[in-house]
């Protein structure tokens, strides 16, 4: 954690709103990436991204600067996303993905060959949304956020070997789910 960030945290703890704004600016993209990766593009994703920083502000006194601010905020973002996923499961209500479910299930190889890059992106990201949360987390942290295996193991508090196993299984699941689009992807 660099000294500039430590200073900003100290100032934010003291109630300096500018320092807090600066910290938010530094990490907003990362948080939005993580939450959108976990939940998909939906109105809740915006709310949860904002809520992540509110929680960060509320827990500033507990933050001991042992890990980086980014890691700490990502942990909050992941926890809030998991809560939202649980809430959705409880309500038995799947987000917009449900209505577009067939996009991933129609085995139309001719169609898949002519898909544009944007459509493919959409399909691949929807496939990510279908992964179980424990696999989705590692895909989001590794591919979208660009964290290293060591950092992911710290964020999720699991062993590095478990991160690698989950990553490999997640890829396997993605590969199977996207098998109908293989021609379009190659």
């Amino acid at each position: 954690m660099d000294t500039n960030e430590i200073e900003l945290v100290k100032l934010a703890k003291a109630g300096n709103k500018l320092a807090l704004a600066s910290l938010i600016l530094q990490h907003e993209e990362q948080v939005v990436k993580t939450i959108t990766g976990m939940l998909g593009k939906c109105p809740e994703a915006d709310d949860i991204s904002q809520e992540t920083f509110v929680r960060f502000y509320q827990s500033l006194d507990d933050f001991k600067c042992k890990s980086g601010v980014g890691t700490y905020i990502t942990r909050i973002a992941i926890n809030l996303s998991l809560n939202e996923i649980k809430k959705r499961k409880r309500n038995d209500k799947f987000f917009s993905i449900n209505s577009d479910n067939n996009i991933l299930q129609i085995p139309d190889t001719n169609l898949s060959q002519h898909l544009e890059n944007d459509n493919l992106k959409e399909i691949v990201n929807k496939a990510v949304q279908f992964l179980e949360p424990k696999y989705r987390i590692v895909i989001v942290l590794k591919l979208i956020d660009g964290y290293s295996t060591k950092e992911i193991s710290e964020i999720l508090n699991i062993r590095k070997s478990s991160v690698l196993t989950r990553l490999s299984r997640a890829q396997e699941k993605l590969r199977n789910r996207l098998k109908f689009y293989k021609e379009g992807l190659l």
Partner: protein
Amino acid sequence: MINYQKKKQRRLNNYLSSLLELQKEKRYLLKIRKLIIEKDYKPDNLFVKKVLSKISALENEEIITVSFNNLLYDLFKKVAITGGAAIVLLMIITCFSQGSLNPFSFLNTSGIFQEPDFLSCALLNF
């Protein structure tokens, strides 16, 4: 250790180059990765402003809650002190006027219960 890893990597690369199917599989996985990474994840322009206003609202709410609790506590203190003073005053007056602090003295009913006529009437009716 490094040499071993290099050798291993070289062996894997050789193996990969000799198998078209594996190459295809690698390209496929890389493309999936690329598509995931490429997606736009841009935050809202007013993101920071929204978060700060949420925090301010939360702080105001906290201030209101704290001041309401203080108000309630002050009100309770005033009522409790006044009530306590009234009770003490009542006890002193009763003590001086009735000569005791017996519960009947407070209700001013000690005379009725002690009268034999009242008791006998009550027993007869029972």
